[in-house]
């Protein structure tokens, strides 16, 4: 590359001075003020409908209770009971296990679906069409979607009948319904779209010529994905992960329905307490849950700066 030597001076002369404008303080102050005004409505709503209830829950978590009443107090019994109980750990492990499995499955599915939509479907019309098909399950309620799995996966359900009819199995598969398997299937069905959408968004912003440039440089299909697409979809993956993880951690209905009551989640246990009018322990459990989920989200945000995606 010695030939470039003589070119260098010419090329350097062509370089413009680096754009380094001194910040105008006045302008920034005005901008900041405007930003505060813009977020005020949301801040008020969050303070009223999220902040305040959380404070109430926090306060109640220190209350005492008996069979019929909650008694204002400041005791730590609800927390110590929670931490002493073996059930707590088992519930959290179970919820975390579901979160991990569902996260992995929806990530793989979501990444591939988004990749297909963005890079293989060339026409915008088809892209929109297929995208809408992804949202079809959302046209009906969660409950109906859950219940419709039952005749499909049940002991004498369509799937088992098909397997038997095809001679693949002699006896109906028992693990299909009312099992951890069924819970994961339902979660994946419910939450994959939450992974697809943010990943689709970040992928759609990738300049297609980047992929060609990588191929030009000798990258094969998998290298292109690993070196270019994956790093540039990171923010979408992070956002999708936040959705999926928080949704799974906060769920009780799917676990209860699809496991046939055999599995429980942190929230379903909490609901039982509420049903038994044991509000203070339920509040303590909720506070711990909020802290743990917040830590998980904070962990994801530490790994990936999602502001870039949201700002775009």
């Amino acid at each position: 590359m010695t030939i470039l030597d003589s070119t260098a001076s010419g090329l350097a002369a062509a370089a413009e001075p680096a754009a380094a404008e001194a910040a105008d303080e006045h302008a920034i102050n005005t901008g900041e003020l405007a930003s505060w005004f813009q977020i005020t409505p949301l801040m008020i709503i969050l303070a009223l409908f999220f902040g305040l209830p959380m404070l109430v829950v926090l306060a109640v978590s220190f209350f005492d209770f008996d069979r019929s009443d909650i008694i204002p107090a400041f005791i730590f019994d609800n927390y110590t009971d929670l931490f002493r109980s073996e059930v707590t750990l088992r519930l959290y492990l179970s919820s975390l296990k579901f979160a991990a499995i569902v996260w992995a499955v929806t990530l793989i599915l979501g990444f591939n679906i988004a990749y297909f939509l963005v890079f293989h479907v060339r026409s915008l019309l088809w892209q929109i069409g297929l995208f809408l098909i992804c949202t079809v399950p959302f046209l009906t309620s969660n409950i109906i979607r859950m219940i419709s799995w039952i005749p499909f996966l049940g002991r004498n359900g369509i799937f088992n009948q098909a397997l038997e009819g095809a001679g693949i199995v002699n006896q109906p598969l028992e693990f299909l319904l009312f099992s951890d398997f069924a819970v994961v299937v339902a979660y994946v069905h419910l939450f994959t779209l939450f992974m697809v959408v943010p990943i689709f968004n970040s992928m759609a912003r990738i300049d297609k010529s980047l992929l060609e440039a990588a191929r030009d440089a000798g990258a094969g299909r998998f290298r292109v994905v690993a070196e270019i697409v994956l790093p540039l979809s990171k923010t979408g993956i992070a956002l999708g992960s936040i959705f999926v993880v928080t949704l799974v951690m906060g769920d009780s209905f799917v676990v209860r329905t699809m496991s046939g009551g055999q599995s429980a989640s942190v929230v379903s246990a909490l609901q039982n307490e509420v049903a038994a009018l044991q509000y203070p322990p339920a509040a303590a459990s909720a506070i711990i849950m909020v802290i743990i989920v917040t830590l998980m989200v904070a962990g994801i945000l530490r790994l990936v700066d999602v502001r870039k995606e949201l700002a775009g």
Partner: protein
Amino acid sequence: MANPDGSGEVAVVGVTKRYGETVAVKDLSLTIPHGAYCCLLGPSGCGKTTILRMIAGHEMPSKGDIRIGGTSVLGLPQIKRGTAMMFQSYALFPHRSVLDNVAFALKMRGAGLSERHATARELLAKVQLEKFANRLPPQLSGGQQQRVALARALITNPRVLLLDEPLSALDEYLRLRMRGELRRVQKELGITFIHVTHTQLEAIAVADMVVVMANGHIEQAASARDIFVAPRNAYVTRFVGGQNVLCGVVEGVSDGTAVLTSRQGARLAFPIDGRQPARGAELYGSIRRDRIAIEKLPAGSLPPNELNAIVGEVHTIENQGSYVKVTIDLGDEEEFVAHMVDDEFFRDPLDIGDRVVARWSASDVNLLDDGLNVRPAMPMAAAAS
């Protein structure tokens, strides 16, 4: 690379490219000699970028063959072709440092970190960007990004460099600087450059060979000099600019000169280079803008009754510094432009609306190929400059 020191002769042989119903490139053949700087010039949608992308291996021809150094490269992956491409928007990887961008191709070849960084640093030093090695591309200016893109394309020692509108993202000043530099790099490397552009002057400024395209086929492939001085047909003349298209009906032929009558009734003389146009046939010619003498027509005087003199009204006047561009309205849709040397113009300046006579010598007229009664298509893009 299969053939790193191999010839960079690029041959496009009978290539057709269809996208569904639309034909982007129609049975096109073109040979670009090794070490040439070739510009593909045409309005947007003429198929020039499609050709480039087929040579690069980002598109497959529907029919025909593409050969580099005499061997067909159809179906070969990009690296096996010995080509490198510089993208219109540079396509730098926004999440990788400048250094890693330049070193990317070496990484794909399995070179170790220190080795590829050393080579990339060397290249960056040569485009004077070594102190930006650890920056991310979005933190660089357009001109700097372009140099990173050039360094990245050259790191594999390609025998053919493909440039897709490399200067279109730069401002006017940088564009003029960079096109000269691209030409120098090409001369010094001695490899084939294929440069796609829709800017006529850019093509003529940098290229050895200019290929003027329209609607998926070649209108003319010739040296930059010939494209400018001797355009083959009215389309090329209008698109390249620099010449005016003349048209008339043949009245008679004598001594290798045809005498014609234009639609406005002016009498024109074309040299016919041994061709035999029939009487009554429509013939096209072109005359360079800087070979036209302009004279004011005093009010009330009759139009001159001589060959190659047209009367019209001054439509626009643009001072270009060393010359003045005068557009004359001849009463038809054909643009007629004369470039007057500044001294001559300012001796007795014209004004918009003045009636003038434009005169030229018959020997300066370049005969065009356009067939009888075939009205050639007007170029779509901003043709004249």
